[in-house]
Protein backbone atom coordinates (compact mmCIF):
# COMPACT_ATOMS: atom_id res chain seq x y z
CA UNK A 1 0.00 0.00 0.00
CA UNK A 2 1.34 3.38 -0.92
CA UNK A 3 1.62 5.79 2.01
CA UNK A 4 -0.04 9.14 1.18
CA UNK A 5 2.20 12.22 1.01
CA UNK A 6 0.56 14.13 3.82
CA UNK A 7 0.99 11.18 6.16
CA UNK A 8 4.69 11.16 5.38
CA UNK A 9 4.83 14.91 5.95
CA UNK A 10 3.10 14.63 9.29
CA UNK A 11 5.37 11.78 10.33
CA UNK A 12 8.36 13.94 9.55
CA UNK A 13 6.91 16.81 11.55
CA UNK A 14 6.21 14.48 14.47
CA UNK A 15 9.80 13.23 14.32
CA UNK A 16 11.17 16.75 14.41
CA UNK A 17 8.83 17.68 17.25
CA UNK A 18 9.90 14.62 19.21
CA UNK A 19 13.53 15.58 18.66
CA UNK A 20 13.04 19.18 19.77
CA UNK A 21 10.69 18.41 22.61
CA UNK A 22 11.44 14.96 23.94
CA UNK A 23 8.97 13.04 26.04
CA UNK A 24 10.86 13.90 29.19
CA UNK A 25 9.91 17.55 28.77
CA UNK A 26 6.26 16.92 28.06
CA UNK A 27 5.36 17.89 31.62
CA UNK A 28 6.47 21.40 30.77
CA UNK A 29 4.56 21.75 27.52
CA UNK A 30 2.40 24.37 29.17
CA UNK A 31 5.39 26.65 29.62
CA UNK A 32 6.51 26.03 26.05
CA UNK A 33 3.13 27.24 24.86
CA UNK A 34 3.35 30.33 27.03
CA UNK A 35 6.87 31.20 25.91
CA UNK A 36 6.11 33.38 22.84
CA UNK A 37 3.54 35.46 24.72
CA UNK A 38 5.84 35.82 27.70
CA UNK A 39 8.60 36.97 25.39
CA UNK A 40 6.34 39.53 23.69
CA UNK A 41 5.18 41.03 26.97
CA UNK A 42 8.79 40.90 28.04
CA UNK A 43 9.46 43.59 25.43
CA UNK A 44 7.20 45.88 27.43
CA UNK A 45 9.06 45.08 30.62
CA UNK A 46 12.33 45.91 28.95
CA UNK A 47 10.80 49.15 27.72
CA UNK A 48 9.72 50.00 31.24
CA UNK A 49 13.23 49.39 32.48
CA UNK A 50 14.66 51.69 29.83
CA UNK A 51 12.13 54.31 30.86
CA UNK A 52 13.00 53.92 34.52
CA UNK A 53 16.67 54.22 33.73
CA UNK A 54 16.11 57.30 31.62
CA UNK A 55 13.99 58.95 34.29
CA UNK A 56 16.91 58.92 36.67
CA UNK A 57 19.20 60.82 34.33
CA UNK A 58 19.37 64.56 34.07
CA UNK A 59 19.55 66.48 30.85
CA UNK A 60 22.67 68.47 30.21
CA UNK A 61 21.21 71.61 28.64
CA UNK A 62 24.39 72.36 26.75
CA UNK A 63 25.04 69.05 25.08
CA UNK A 64 21.46 67.79 25.19
CA UNK A 65 22.75 64.47 26.35
CA UNK A 66 21.69 62.57 29.34
CA UNK A 67 23.91 62.51 32.39
CA UNK A 68 25.94 59.46 33.20
CA UNK A 69 24.97 59.31 36.84
CA UNK A 70 21.66 58.85 38.51
CA UNK A 71 19.62 61.33 40.48
CA UNK A 72 16.05 61.88 41.51
CA UNK A 73 16.04 65.46 40.27
CA UNK A 74 13.49 64.77 37.52
CA UNK A 75 10.99 63.55 40.06
CA UNK A 76 11.70 66.61 42.18
CA UNK A 77 10.77 68.78 39.22
CA UNK A 78 7.51 66.89 38.91
CA UNK A 79 6.65 67.46 42.51
CA UNK A 80 7.56 71.11 42.57
CA UNK A 81 6.37 72.63 39.30
CA UNK A 82 2.73 73.60 39.42
CA UNK A 83 2.12 72.84 35.74
CA UNK A 84 2.46 69.15 36.43
CA UNK A 85 0.12 69.32 39.39
CA UNK A 86 -2.43 71.14 37.24
CA UNK A 87 -2.20 68.50 34.54
CA UNK A 88 -2.55 65.74 37.12
CA UNK A 89 -5.63 67.28 38.70
CA UNK A 90 -7.17 68.03 35.32
CA UNK A 91 -6.65 64.46 34.10
CA UNK A 92 -7.94 62.87 37.29
CA UNK A 93 -11.05 65.07 37.49
CA UNK A 94 -11.74 64.40 33.82
CA UNK A 95 -11.30 60.68 34.36
CA UNK A 96 -13.78 60.71 37.24
CA UNK A 97 -16.31 62.81 35.32
CA UNK A 98 -16.05 60.73 32.19
CA UNK A 99 -16.31 57.48 34.17
CA UNK A 100 -19.48 58.51 35.96
CA UNK A 101 -21.20 59.89 32.86
CA UNK A 102 -20.13 57.02 30.62
CA UNK A 103 -21.24 54.29 32.98
CA UNK A 104 -24.55 56.08 33.56
CA UNK A 105 -25.15 56.25 29.80
CA UNK A 106 -23.77 52.81 29.05
CA UNK A 107 -25.86 50.85 31.51
CA UNK A 108 -29.27 51.55 29.90
CA UNK A 109 -27.75 50.78 26.51
CA UNK A 110 -26.34 47.45 27.70
CA UNK A 111 -29.56 46.65 29.51
CA UNK A 112 -31.74 47.34 26.49
CA UNK A 113 -29.41 45.45 24.20
CA UNK A 114 -29.49 42.34 26.37
CA UNK A 115 -33.13 42.41 27.41
CA UNK A 116 -34.80 43.30 24.13
CA UNK A 117 -36.90 40.59 22.59
CA UNK A 118 -36.22 41.66 19.05
CA UNK A 119 -33.10 40.16 17.50
CA UNK A 120 -33.03 42.97 14.96
CA UNK A 121 -32.89 45.63 17.67
CA UNK A 122 -30.09 43.78 19.38
CA UNK A 123 -28.14 43.46 16.15
CA UNK A 124 -28.72 47.11 15.34
CA UNK A 125 -27.53 48.21 18.78
CA UNK A 126 -24.48 45.95 18.52
CA UNK A 127 -23.53 47.28 15.10
CA UNK A 128 -24.02 50.86 16.25
CA UNK A 129 -21.58 50.06 19.02
CA UNK A 130 -18.93 48.22 17.04
CA UNK A 131 -18.82 50.61 14.12
CA UNK A 132 -17.39 53.52 16.14
CA UNK A 133 -15.24 51.05 18.06
CA UNK A 134 -13.56 49.91 14.86
CA UNK A 135 -13.32 53.37 13.33
CA UNK A 136 -10.72 54.64 15.73
CA UNK A 137 -10.15 57.63 17.94
CA UNK A 138 -8.63 60.08 15.49
CA UNK A 139 -11.34 59.76 12.86
CA UNK A 140 -14.11 60.05 15.43
CA UNK A 141 -12.57 63.11 17.05
CA UNK A 142 -12.31 64.59 13.57
CA UNK A 143 -16.01 63.95 13.01
CA UNK A 144 -16.82 65.84 16.20
CA UNK A 145 -14.72 68.77 15.04
CA UNK A 146 -16.97 68.97 12.00
CA UNK A 147 -20.14 68.73 14.04
CA UNK A 148 -19.18 71.18 16.76
CA UNK A 149 -16.93 73.52 14.78
CA UNK A 150 -17.55 77.16 14.07
CA UNK A 151 -19.04 76.33 10.65
CA UNK A 152 -20.32 73.00 11.89
CA UNK A 153 -23.76 71.52 11.92
CA UNK A 154 -24.75 72.60 15.37
CA UNK A 155 -23.72 76.17 14.79
CA UNK A 156 -25.51 76.12 11.44
CA UNK A 157 -28.66 74.96 13.22
CA UNK A 158 -28.27 77.68 15.81
CA UNK A 159 -27.75 80.23 13.06
CA UNK A 160 -31.11 79.27 11.60
CA UNK A 161 -32.75 80.58 14.74
CA UNK A 162 -30.39 83.52 14.98
CA UNK A 163 -28.14 82.24 17.76
CA UNK A 164 -24.44 81.72 17.99
CA UNK A 165 -21.94 80.91 16.66
CA UNK A 166 -20.80 79.25 19.85
CA UNK A 167 -17.32 78.05 20.55
CA UNK A 168 -17.97 74.38 21.09
CA UNK A 169 -14.60 72.85 20.48
CA UNK A 170 -11.10 73.28 21.87
CA UNK A 171 -12.50 73.56 25.36
CA UNK A 172 -12.91 71.36 28.41
CA UNK A 173 -16.63 70.45 28.00
CA UNK A 174 -16.15 69.32 24.42
CA UNK A 175 -13.17 67.26 25.53
CA UNK A 176 -15.23 65.55 28.23
CA UNK A 177 -18.03 64.99 25.74
CA UNK A 178 -15.64 63.51 23.16
CA UNK A 179 -14.11 61.22 25.75
CA UNK A 180 -17.53 60.02 26.94
CA UNK A 181 -18.66 59.09 23.45
CA UNK A 182 -15.31 57.40 22.79
CA UNK A 183 -15.49 55.32 25.98
CA UNK A 184 -19.15 54.38 25.54
CA UNK A 185 -18.56 51.19 23.48
CA UNK A 186 -15.95 49.97 25.97
CA UNK A 187 -18.31 50.47 28.87
CA UNK A 188 -21.29 48.84 27.17
CA UNK A 189 -19.23 45.80 26.15
CA UNK A 190 -18.03 45.37 29.72
CA UNK A 191 -21.45 45.82 31.32
CA UNK A 192 -23.38 43.65 28.86
CA UNK A 193 -22.03 40.26 30.01
CA UNK A 194 -22.92 41.14 33.60
CA UNK A 195 -26.49 42.02 32.61
CA UNK A 196 -26.72 38.79 30.60
CA UNK A 197 -25.87 36.92 33.77
CA UNK A 198 -28.83 38.42 35.65
CA UNK A 199 -31.76 36.09 35.32
CA UNK A 200 -34.75 38.02 34.10
CA UNK A 201 -36.93 36.02 36.49
CA UNK A 202 -35.35 37.87 39.39
CA UNK A 203 -36.58 41.19 38.08
CA UNK A 204 -40.00 39.74 37.34
CA UNK A 205 -40.14 38.24 40.82
CA UNK A 206 -39.33 41.60 42.36
CA UNK A 207 -42.06 43.29 40.38
CA UNK A 208 -44.61 40.62 41.17
CA UNK A 209 -43.83 41.19 44.83
CA UNK A 210 -44.96 44.76 44.40
CA UNK A 211 -41.85 46.80 43.67
CA UNK A 212 -42.17 49.31 40.82
CA UNK A 213 -39.48 49.32 38.15
CA UNK A 214 -37.44 52.00 39.88
CA UNK A 215 -37.11 49.99 43.07
CA UNK A 216 -36.45 46.80 41.17
CA UNK A 217 -33.74 48.59 39.29
CA UNK A 218 -32.10 50.03 42.38
CA UNK A 219 -32.31 47.02 44.62
CA UNK A 220 -32.16 44.05 42.26
CA UNK A 221 -30.70 44.89 38.86
CA UNK A 222 -28.00 47.34 39.86
CA UNK A 223 -26.43 45.27 42.65
CA UNK A 224 -26.44 42.16 40.46
CA UNK A 225 -24.81 44.03 37.60
CA UNK A 226 -22.09 45.27 39.91
CA UNK A 227 -19.19 43.19 38.49
CA UNK A 228 -19.80 44.65 35.06
CA UNK A 229 -20.21 48.18 36.38
CA UNK A 230 -17.00 47.92 38.36
CA UNK A 231 -14.91 46.62 35.47
CA UNK A 232 -16.43 49.23 33.15
CA UNK A 233 -15.66 52.01 35.65
CA UNK A 234 -12.09 50.86 36.18
CA UNK A 235 -11.35 50.50 32.48
CA UNK A 236 -12.91 53.82 31.48
CA UNK A 237 -11.11 55.57 34.31
CA UNK A 238 -7.73 54.13 33.36
CA UNK A 239 -8.22 54.83 29.66
CA UNK A 240 -9.35 58.42 30.22
CA UNK A 241 -6.60 59.23 32.68
CA UNK A 242 -3.95 58.12 30.23
CA UNK A 243 -5.52 59.35 26.98
CA UNK A 244 -3.42 61.24 24.49
CA UNK A 245 -5.33 61.95 21.29
CA UNK A 246 -8.57 63.51 22.54
CA UNK A 247 -7.00 66.31 24.63
CA UNK A 248 -4.95 67.33 21.62
CA UNK A 249 -7.66 67.17 18.98
CA UNK A 250 -10.73 68.33 20.93
CA UNK A 251 -8.99 70.11 23.77
CA UNK A 252 -7.03 72.32 21.46
CA UNK A 253 -3.76 72.18 23.32
CA UNK A 254 -4.94 74.13 26.35
CA UNK A 255 -6.40 71.12 28.13
CA UNK A 256 -3.46 68.77 28.15
CA UNK A 257 -3.54 65.51 30.06
CA UNK A 258 -0.66 63.63 31.60
CA UNK A 259 0.11 61.71 28.41
CA UNK A 260 0.42 65.01 26.56
CA UNK A 261 2.86 66.26 29.18
CA UNK A 262 4.95 63.13 28.60
CA UNK A 263 4.94 63.69 24.85
CA UNK A 264 5.84 67.36 25.21
CA UNK A 265 8.73 66.55 27.51
CA UNK A 266 10.14 64.15 24.93
CA UNK A 267 9.46 66.01 21.73
CA UNK A 268 9.23 69.69 22.58
CA UNK A 269 11.95 70.16 25.13
CA UNK A 270 13.91 66.99 24.31
CA UNK A 271 14.21 66.06 27.94
CA UNK A 272 13.90 62.28 27.81
CA UNK A 273 14.62 61.98 31.50
CA UNK A 274 11.82 64.28 32.56
CA UNK A 275 9.40 62.66 30.13
CA UNK A 276 10.30 59.22 31.42
CA UNK A 277 9.82 60.42 34.97
CA UNK A 278 6.32 61.69 34.16
CA UNK A 279 5.52 58.42 32.39
CA UNK A 280 6.75 56.30 35.31
CA UNK A 281 4.84 58.51 37.71
CA UNK A 282 1.72 57.99 35.59
CA UNK A 283 2.18 54.22 35.61
CA UNK A 284 2.53 54.22 39.39
CA UNK A 285 -0.25 56.75 39.96
CA UNK A 286 -2.61 54.98 37.61
CA UNK A 287 -2.00 51.55 39.15
CA UNK A 288 -2.45 52.90 42.66
CA UNK A 289 -5.71 54.63 41.81
CA UNK A 290 -7.03 51.54 40.06
CA UNK A 291 -6.03 49.48 43.07
CA UNK A 292 -7.86 51.90 45.36
CA UNK A 293 -10.91 51.89 43.10
CA UNK A 294 -11.00 48.12 43.07
CA UNK A 295 -10.73 47.89 46.84
CA UNK A 296 -13.45 50.46 47.36
CA UNK A 297 -15.81 49.07 44.73
CA UNK A 298 -14.90 45.45 45.19
CA UNK A 299 -13.10 43.41 42.57
CA UNK A 300 -16.35 42.76 40.83
CA UNK A 301 -16.55 39.05 41.46
CA UNK A 302 -19.94 38.48 43.03
CA UNK A 303 -20.03 37.55 46.69
CA UNK A 304 -21.64 34.29 47.46
CA UNK A 305 -23.98 34.55 50.43
Amino acid at each position, binding site marked *: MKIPMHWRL*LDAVEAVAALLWPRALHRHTGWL*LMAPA*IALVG*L*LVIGLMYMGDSSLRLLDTETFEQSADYSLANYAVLASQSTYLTVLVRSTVAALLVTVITVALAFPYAYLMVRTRSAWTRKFL*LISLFLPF*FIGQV*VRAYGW*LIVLGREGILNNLFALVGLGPFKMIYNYPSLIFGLVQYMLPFAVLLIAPAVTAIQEELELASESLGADWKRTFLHVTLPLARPGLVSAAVVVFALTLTDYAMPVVLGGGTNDFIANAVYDAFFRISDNGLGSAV*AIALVLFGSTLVGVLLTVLGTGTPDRD
Partner: protein
Amino acid sequence: MNARGKTLLLWLVVGFNLLTLAAPTLVILGASVTTGNMIVFPPEGFSLRWYEKVFASEVLRDAFVRSFWVSLVCTVVSVPAGTLAALGLARHRLRFANLLQVYLLLPFTIPLIGSGIGLMLFFGEVGVLGELWPVGLACGVVNLPFMIWSVLASANGLDPDLENAASNCGAPPVQAFLTVTLPAVTPGIITGALIMFVLAFNEFLVSLLLTDANIVTLPVSIYNSIRSIITPDLAAVSVIYILVAGVAIVVLDRLVGLEVFLKGR
Protein backbone atom coordinates in the same frame (compact mmCIF):
# COMPACT_ATOMS: atom_id res chain seq x y z
CA MET B 1 -47.79 52.14 33.26
CA ASN B 2 -44.58 51.35 35.05
CA ALA B 3 -43.20 49.35 32.18
CA ARG B 4 -44.01 52.20 29.81
CA GLY B 5 -42.08 54.71 31.88
CA LYS B 6 -39.11 52.38 32.07
CA THR B 7 -39.11 51.69 28.33
CA LEU B 8 -39.39 55.39 27.57
CA LEU B 9 -36.47 56.29 29.78
CA LEU B 10 -34.37 53.46 28.39
CA TRP B 11 -35.01 54.44 24.79
CA LEU B 12 -34.39 58.11 25.57
CA VAL B 13 -30.91 57.35 26.86
CA VAL B 14 -30.22 54.79 24.16
CA GLY B 15 -31.46 57.19 21.49
CA PHE B 16 -29.10 59.87 22.74
CA ASN B 17 -26.26 57.36 22.72
CA LEU B 18 -27.07 56.23 19.20
CA LEU B 19 -27.06 59.83 18.05
CA THR B 20 -23.68 60.60 19.56
CA LEU B 21 -22.21 57.31 18.34
CA ALA B 22 -23.47 57.78 14.80
CA ALA B 23 -22.99 61.52 14.36
CA PRO B 24 -19.26 61.59 13.54
CA THR B 25 -19.65 58.74 11.05
CA LEU B 26 -22.60 60.25 9.21
CA VAL B 27 -21.08 63.70 9.16
CA ILE B 28 -17.81 62.47 7.71
CA LEU B 29 -19.62 60.47 5.06
CA GLY B 30 -21.65 63.51 4.14
CA ALA B 31 -18.80 65.99 4.19
CA SER B 32 -16.68 63.82 1.94
CA VAL B 33 -18.98 64.21 -1.06
CA THR B 34 -19.18 67.98 -1.08
CA THR B 35 -18.50 69.93 -4.26
CA GLY B 36 -17.11 72.85 -2.29
CA ASN B 37 -13.65 73.30 -0.82
CA MET B 38 -14.59 73.39 2.79
CA ILE B 39 -15.71 70.87 5.30
CA VAL B 40 -19.39 71.57 5.63
CA PHE B 41 -22.33 69.48 6.50
CA PRO B 42 -24.79 69.27 4.81
CA PRO B 43 -22.48 69.13 1.81
CA GLU B 44 -22.75 71.54 -1.06
CA GLY B 45 -23.83 69.32 -3.89
CA PHE B 46 -22.56 65.84 -4.58
CA SER B 47 -19.17 65.12 -6.03
CA LEU B 48 -16.66 62.35 -5.82
CA ARG B 49 -13.73 64.58 -6.61
CA TRP B 50 -12.26 64.40 -3.14
CA TYR B 51 -12.11 60.62 -3.45
CA GLU B 52 -10.30 61.08 -6.76
CA LYS B 53 -7.89 63.37 -5.02
CA VAL B 54 -7.29 60.83 -2.27
CA PHE B 55 -6.63 57.98 -4.68
CA ALA B 56 -4.32 60.19 -6.69
CA SER B 57 -2.40 61.30 -3.63
CA GLU B 58 0.80 59.33 -3.26
CA VAL B 59 1.23 60.48 0.30
CA LEU B 60 -2.09 59.07 1.40
CA ARG B 61 -1.71 55.89 -0.66
CA ASP B 62 1.66 55.23 0.90
CA ALA B 63 0.30 55.85 4.37
CA PHE B 64 -2.54 53.44 3.67
CA VAL B 65 -0.18 50.72 2.46
CA ARG B 66 2.03 51.25 5.50
CA SER B 67 -0.91 50.94 7.86
CA PHE B 68 -1.90 47.75 6.08
CA TRP B 69 1.60 46.32 6.42
CA VAL B 70 1.74 47.25 10.11
CA SER B 71 -1.58 45.51 10.69
CA LEU B 72 -0.31 42.43 8.86
CA VAL B 73 2.85 42.23 10.96
CA CYS B 74 0.80 42.74 14.11
CA THR B 75 -1.57 39.92 13.21
CA VAL B 76 1.20 37.53 12.15
CA VAL B 77 3.05 38.14 15.41
CA SER B 78 0.14 38.09 17.84
CA VAL B 79 -1.95 35.22 16.45
CA PRO B 80 0.55 32.41 17.16
CA ALA B 81 1.70 33.89 20.46
CA GLY B 82 -1.83 34.58 21.67
CA THR B 83 -3.25 31.26 20.50
CA LEU B 84 -0.50 29.19 22.10
CA ALA B 85 -0.71 31.19 25.31
CA ALA B 86 -4.47 30.78 25.54
CA LEU B 87 -4.15 27.05 24.94
CA GLY B 88 -1.41 26.86 27.55
CA LEU B 89 -3.62 28.66 30.06
CA ALA B 90 -6.71 26.60 29.30
CA ARG B 91 -5.13 23.19 28.93
CA HIS B 92 -2.25 22.98 31.29
CA ARG B 93 -1.97 23.39 35.00
CA LEU B 94 0.84 25.85 35.49
CA ARG B 95 2.46 26.86 38.68
CA PHE B 96 2.24 30.60 39.24
CA ALA B 97 -0.85 30.66 37.02
CA ASN B 98 -2.22 33.74 38.77
CA LEU B 99 1.07 35.59 38.52
CA LEU B 100 1.22 34.65 34.88
CA GLN B 101 -2.22 36.07 34.23
CA VAL B 102 -1.28 39.35 35.90
CA TYR B 103 1.91 39.41 33.82
CA LEU B 104 0.01 38.81 30.59
CA LEU B 105 -2.32 41.67 31.44
CA LEU B 106 0.59 44.11 31.59
CA PRO B 107 -0.15 45.49 28.12
CA PHE B 108 -3.45 46.68 29.55
CA THR B 109 -2.32 47.77 32.99
CA ILE B 110 0.58 49.83 31.70
CA PRO B 111 -0.86 53.01 30.15
CA LEU B 112 -0.44 53.13 26.40
CA ILE B 113 1.80 56.19 26.61
CA GLY B 114 4.06 54.28 29.01
CA SER B 115 4.23 51.21 26.75
CA GLY B 116 4.81 53.39 23.72
CA ILE B 117 7.60 55.46 25.22
CA GLY B 118 9.26 52.41 26.73
CA LEU B 119 9.25 50.58 23.41
CA MET B 120 10.44 53.73 21.66
CA LEU B 121 13.44 53.94 23.98
CA PHE B 122 14.18 50.23 23.65
CA PHE B 123 13.81 50.14 19.87
CA GLY B 124 15.91 53.29 19.67
CA GLU B 125 18.73 51.66 21.61
CA VAL B 126 18.55 48.55 19.48
CA GLY B 127 18.51 50.72 16.36
CA VAL B 128 15.32 49.52 14.68
CA LEU B 129 13.45 52.82 14.73
CA GLY B 130 12.73 53.97 11.21
CA GLU B 131 11.47 50.60 10.08
CA LEU B 132 7.83 49.63 9.91
CA TRP B 133 7.93 46.14 11.34
CA PRO B 134 8.71 47.32 14.91
CA VAL B 135 5.49 49.34 14.75
CA GLY B 136 3.60 46.17 13.87
CA LEU B 137 5.39 44.29 16.63
CA ALA B 138 4.51 47.01 19.13
CA CYS B 139 0.84 46.93 18.10
CA GLY B 140 0.88 43.17 18.58
CA VAL B 141 2.35 43.46 22.05
CA VAL B 142 0.10 46.25 23.21
CA ASN B 143 -3.11 44.50 22.16
CA LEU B 144 -2.04 40.92 22.96
CA PRO B 145 -4.59 40.42 25.78
CA PHE B 146 -7.41 40.83 23.25
CA MET B 147 -6.01 37.92 21.24
CA ILE B 148 -5.55 35.75 24.31
CA TRP B 149 -9.08 36.49 25.55
CA SER B 150 -10.52 35.67 22.16
CA VAL B 151 -8.89 32.26 21.89
CA LEU B 152 -9.45 31.54 25.57
CA ALA B 153 -13.18 31.98 25.08
CA SER B 154 -13.11 29.21 22.45
CA ALA B 155 -10.60 27.09 24.31
CA ASN B 156 -12.63 27.02 27.49
CA GLY B 157 -15.44 25.41 25.58
CA LEU B 158 -13.23 22.59 24.39
CA ASP B 159 -13.71 19.29 26.12
CA PRO B 160 -10.26 18.06 27.28
CA ASP B 161 -11.32 14.48 26.78
CA LEU B 162 -11.41 14.99 23.04
CA GLU B 163 -7.65 15.34 22.93
CA ASN B 164 -7.25 12.37 25.23
CA ALA B 165 -9.50 10.38 22.95
CA ALA B 166 -7.35 11.32 19.98
CA SER B 167 -4.23 10.18 21.81
CA ASN B 168 -5.94 6.96 22.78
CA CYS B 169 -6.71 6.36 19.14
CA GLY B 170 -3.00 6.63 18.46
CA ALA B 171 -2.58 10.21 17.33
CA PRO B 172 0.83 11.63 18.13
CA PRO B 173 0.85 15.07 19.85
CA VAL B 174 1.27 17.32 16.81
CA GLN B 175 -1.45 15.50 14.92
CA ALA B 176 -3.82 15.67 17.89
CA PHE B 177 -3.15 19.40 18.04
CA LEU B 178 -3.76 19.92 14.35
CA THR B 179 -6.85 17.77 14.02
CA VAL B 180 -8.60 18.26 17.35
CA THR B 181 -7.42 21.35 19.20
CA LEU B 182 -6.87 23.79 16.38
CA PRO B 183 -10.21 23.33 14.60
CA ALA B 184 -12.02 23.75 17.90
CA VAL B 185 -10.44 27.11 18.68
CA THR B 186 -10.55 28.41 15.11
CA PRO B 187 -13.53 30.75 15.79
CA GLY B 188 -11.57 32.37 18.59
CA ILE B 189 -8.46 32.61 16.44
CA ILE B 190 -10.27 34.27 13.56
CA THR B 191 -12.15 36.68 15.81
CA GLY B 192 -8.94 37.57 17.58
CA ALA B 193 -7.02 37.99 14.34
CA LEU B 194 -9.72 40.28 12.98
CA ILE B 195 -9.72 42.40 16.13
CA MET B 196 -5.94 42.60 16.17
CA PHE B 197 -5.86 43.66 12.52
CA VAL B 198 -8.43 46.39 12.92
CA LEU B 199 -6.89 47.69 16.14
CA ALA B 200 -3.47 47.87 14.51
CA PHE B 201 -4.95 49.61 11.47
CA ASN B 202 -6.41 52.22 13.82
CA GLU B 203 -3.48 52.45 16.20
CA PHE B 204 -2.55 56.06 16.66
CA LEU B 205 -0.39 56.72 19.71
CA VAL B 206 2.05 53.84 19.20
CA SER B 207 2.44 54.83 15.57
CA LEU B 208 2.97 58.45 16.53
CA LEU B 209 5.79 57.50 18.86
CA LEU B 210 7.49 54.89 16.71
CA THR B 211 7.31 56.44 13.27
CA ASP B 212 9.11 59.41 11.79
CA ALA B 213 7.93 61.68 9.00
CA ASN B 214 9.07 59.20 6.37
CA ILE B 215 7.05 56.24 7.49
CA VAL B 216 3.83 57.65 8.91
CA THR B 217 0.86 55.38 9.06
CA LEU B 218 -2.61 56.48 8.06
CA PRO B 219 -3.97 57.53 11.49
CA VAL B 220 -0.91 59.70 12.07
CA SER B 221 -1.27 61.15 8.60
CA ILE B 222 -4.88 62.08 9.28
CA TYR B 223 -3.92 63.53 12.65
CA ASN B 224 -1.23 65.71 11.10
CA SER B 225 -3.70 66.96 8.54
CA ILE B 226 -6.27 67.80 11.20
CA ARG B 227 -3.73 69.99 12.87
CA SER B 228 -2.85 71.90 9.71
CA ILE B 229 -5.49 72.46 7.07
CA ILE B 230 -8.78 70.68 7.03
CA THR B 231 -10.04 70.00 3.55
CA PRO B 232 -12.71 67.52 2.49
CA ASP B 233 -10.19 64.99 1.21
CA LEU B 234 -9.54 64.26 4.89
CA ALA B 235 -13.17 63.26 5.16
CA ALA B 236 -12.74 61.02 2.12
CA VAL B 237 -9.78 59.32 3.77
CA SER B 238 -11.77 58.84 6.95
CA VAL B 239 -14.47 57.12 4.93
CA ILE B 240 -11.87 54.42 4.22
CA TYR B 241 -11.81 53.74 7.93
CA ILE B 242 -15.57 53.61 8.04
CA LEU B 243 -15.52 51.07 5.21
CA VAL B 244 -12.85 48.96 6.89
CA ALA B 245 -14.88 49.02 10.09
CA GLY B 246 -17.99 48.04 8.16
CA VAL B 247 -16.29 45.12 6.45
CA ALA B 248 -14.77 43.95 9.73
CA ILE B 249 -18.16 43.99 11.41
CA VAL B 250 -19.81 42.04 8.61
CA VAL B 251 -17.03 39.43 8.65
CA LEU B 252 -17.12 39.20 12.43
CA ASP B 253 -20.87 38.80 12.41
CA ARG B 254 -20.81 36.12 9.69
CA LEU B 255 -18.13 34.17 11.52
CA VAL B 256 -19.15 34.23 15.16
CA GLY B 257 -22.11 36.56 15.43
CA LEU B 258 -21.71 39.83 17.27
CA GLU B 259 -23.94 38.57 20.07
CA VAL B 260 -21.06 36.50 21.39
CA PHE B 261 -19.73 39.66 23.02
CA LEU B 262 -22.83 39.85 25.15
CA LYS B 263 -22.05 36.69 27.00
CA GLY B 264 -19.71 36.51 29.94
CA ARG B 265 -16.44 34.65 29.83
